[in-house]
């Protein structure tokens, strides 16, 4: 009986089995077939026609990263195209890094100016991976996001660099006419933010503001009044509140604090920097370095608790300080470190600290004038912290790539995007001023770095040419008077002449005589009105 069931060849059993086989095979086909279909990849290999003024046309290979015109150009091809001109440069490209020498004479290694014959890359290839690579640029260490590609025929590496980064390095005038890139080696680079805005340069960013933080002049702004998440750029306000406590004498930089269970718990979470056991002893100064350099969230929490007793009390001080400085309602703090939190509601919302670019500029102006020593910290690339027996590193890549960069703070969350508040010390006829670029909500790090570097380069040239008055179109430009940002600390006696002067100016402004009302033109009331 058992045997007969399985070897039964009745019509019904054959139909069921045949149906089962067909169904399984169909499912198999649906799973396997798509893998044989063409896989279109956006990292295309392309050939660009480059017209070098005075030299002629050259072919330059380039890679479009994710979209058309998201271009990374071959440095070897560009070196040959610009050879013998005022924009020439020499290259040494190896797997571990690139040495770039402006003004040097490049010796071709073969393959320069050739054409990509295959226009899509092998997605599985490890060679076409955009990485942050080490650059030696005229003796200075820099880091750029680039592709390294090894030519199997010549055996040499080529480096594909973001076109904007190369333009900023060369400092020469570049433009597109149709599909041809024009380079004029004799003309210096001229950046026009209005033109950049019109061409969509800032569309991948939520807000941008460039200004002189020493005298409050704003050089350029894009969406300066929209309130956006600020991520770890929050820590600039955290620094101000902590230093207010130091200034008032309630703590000192060498005060030792013990970390709490909350700090330990945060150091175990996904937002951790490094593990901190509760009860660890650490100085206030070390916590500040850990907060500003690697943007450590648990150290920021430890600092907040040491200053105010709890994060809640510290955040209240942050909001009070924002009001005292004169920041708008578009700025609000919920956490000391910029991490998001959930509301305590049945239907929970995820909220983050937020700010406008205008408010961030006011904050930076206040910070630079009140606690200028912050740039000693934010310009440091690495710092050993004895209490944790570890070295922390600065997350701000502008320190490497932008001459004169002195800080200030990066910030990244999913919602906030890539934020960066950066500053350079620019020296001109008016002395040395701090030029600040605020960028909130860039889509990715490359965009963030590209926009900030371009704007800082522009800001440096504006300051050296005389400041905001030298900008031809500066309609609507505001100026924030740094004196307006001074808030006297109750009970404190100014330690020096500059602090005294600020206090006296503030006192005088709050005691200007109120003019008598003009009674001449008040109409007489008619009876019955």
């Amino acid at each position, binding site marked *: 009986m058992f045997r007969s069931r399985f070897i039964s060849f009745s019509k019904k059993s054959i139909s069921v089995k045949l149906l089962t086989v067909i169904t399984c095979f169909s499912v198999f086909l649906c799973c396997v077939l798509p893998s044989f279909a063409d896989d279109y990849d956006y990292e295309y290999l392309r050939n660009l026609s480059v017209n070098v003024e005075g030299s002629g046309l050259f072919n330059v290979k380039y890679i479009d990263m994710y979209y058309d015109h998201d271009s990374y150009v071959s440095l070897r091809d560009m070196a040959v195209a610009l050879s013998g001109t005022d924009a020439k440069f020499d290259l040494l490209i190896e797997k571990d890094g690139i040495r770039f020498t402006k003004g040097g004479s490049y010796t071709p290694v073969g393959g320069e100016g050739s054409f990509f014959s295959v226009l899509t890359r092998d997605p599985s290839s490890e060679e076409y991976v955009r990485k942050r690579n080490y650059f030696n640029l005229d003796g200075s260490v820099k880091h750029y996001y680039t592709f390294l590609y090894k030519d199997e025929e010549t055996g040499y590496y080529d480096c594909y660099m973001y076109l904007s980064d190369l333009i900023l390095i060369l400092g020469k005038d570049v433009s597109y006419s149709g599909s041809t890139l024009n380079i004029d080696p004799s003309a210096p680079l001229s950046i026009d933010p209005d033109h950049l805005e019109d061409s969509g340069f800032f569309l991948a960013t939520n807000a941008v503001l460039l200004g002189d933080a020493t005298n409050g002049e704003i050089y350029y702004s894009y969406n300066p009044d929209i309130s956006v998440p600020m991520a770890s750029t929050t820590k600039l306000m955290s620094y101000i509140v902590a230093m207010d406590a130091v200034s008032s004498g309630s703590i000192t930089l060498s005060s030792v604090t013990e970390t709490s269970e909350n700090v330990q718990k945060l150091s175990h979470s996904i937002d951790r920097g490094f593990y901190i056991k509760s009860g660890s002893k650490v100085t206030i100064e070390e916590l500040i370095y850990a907060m500003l350099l690697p943007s450590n969230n648990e150290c920021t929490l430890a600092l907040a608790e040491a200053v105010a007793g709890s994060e809640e009390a510290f955040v209240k001080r942050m909001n009070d300080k924002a009001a005292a400085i004169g920041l708008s309602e578009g700025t609000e703090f919920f956490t000391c470190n910029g991490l998001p939190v959930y509301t305590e509601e049945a239907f929970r919302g995820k909220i983050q600290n937020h700010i406008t670019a205008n408010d961030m500029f006011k904050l930076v102006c206040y910070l630079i004038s009140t606690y200028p020593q912050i740039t000693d910290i934010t310009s440091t690339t690495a710092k050993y912290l004895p209490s944790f027996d570890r070295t922390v590193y600065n997350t701000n890549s502008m320190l490497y790539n932008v001459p004169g960069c002195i800080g200030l703070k990066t910030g990244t969350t999913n919602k906030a995007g890539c934020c960066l508040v950066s500053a350079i010390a620019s020296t001109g006829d008016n002395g040395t001023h701090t030029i600040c670029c605020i960028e909130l909500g860039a889509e990715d790090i490359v965009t963030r770095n590209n926009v900030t570097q371009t704007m800082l380069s522009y800001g440096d040239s504006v300051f050296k040419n005389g400041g905001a008055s030298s900008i031809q179109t500066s309609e609507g430009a505001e100026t924030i008077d740094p004196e307006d940002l001074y808030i006297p600390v109750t009970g404190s006696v100014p330690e*020096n002449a500059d602090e005294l*002067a600020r206090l006296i100016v503030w006192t005088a402004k709050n005691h200007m*005589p109120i003019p008598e009302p003009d009674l001449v033109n008040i109409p007489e009331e008619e009876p019955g009105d």
Partner: protein
Amino acid sequence: MKKKNRFLTFMVIFLLLVILTGGGLLAYKYYFASDTSYLGSWSREIDMRGYVIEDMNAWFADPTTAANVEFDDTKVTIKVTLALTSEGKFTEKIDESSFEEAKASASALALSGLISFLDKRLENAGIDKDSADKSIEELIEEALGMSASDYLAEKGPALLPTLDALKDMYNISGTYEVKGNAMRRISGGKSVCETFFVKDDYLIFTSPCEDNFGATLSAPIDNSDTVLKMLYDYPVAYNKQ
């Protein structure tokens, strides 16, 4: 005739005696007798305005504003006395009562600079002091709860060297010797030789001695390690006290 000859003889002898006496006196005065008009007590004043202005400008630390800060013409001086005795001893020292007066003058001078500095800062901030209803001193009083002078005394720079420092610099005593118009003073193993003269109520040191003057005095001229450095520029005048 005999009477007339005797008279002439007496006249000649008399005139001869007068000339010899006069010549002798002149010779004595020139070769043996010395001018002691330098003996006694003298004093000079040291101008300390430069100290005060320099300290205040450094304290302002604002090159843009401080360049235009004006100080009033309050004098700040300290008296130094010099006593030369007939026993060949000298004493030079700070007059302590003048130091106290100098401190008060220095504070007044510094205050004038501070007012001018704050004036400039208010001007830079767009505040017209003439339309403000309070003077700068009143603003300081209101803001700090103390007078501007008290604030400077507490937080301002040290305007003058301390009395002890001044004593270390200026208090010297020792011996001296005079040869003609050269005076050598010796103190603590060091010496200085200076040419001088006395005129009316002034004792004036004009320059360091030339070597030949120094060589004729009892103490030899050695190298610079044994030179007593005087804190003034030549010529320097002392007043008779």
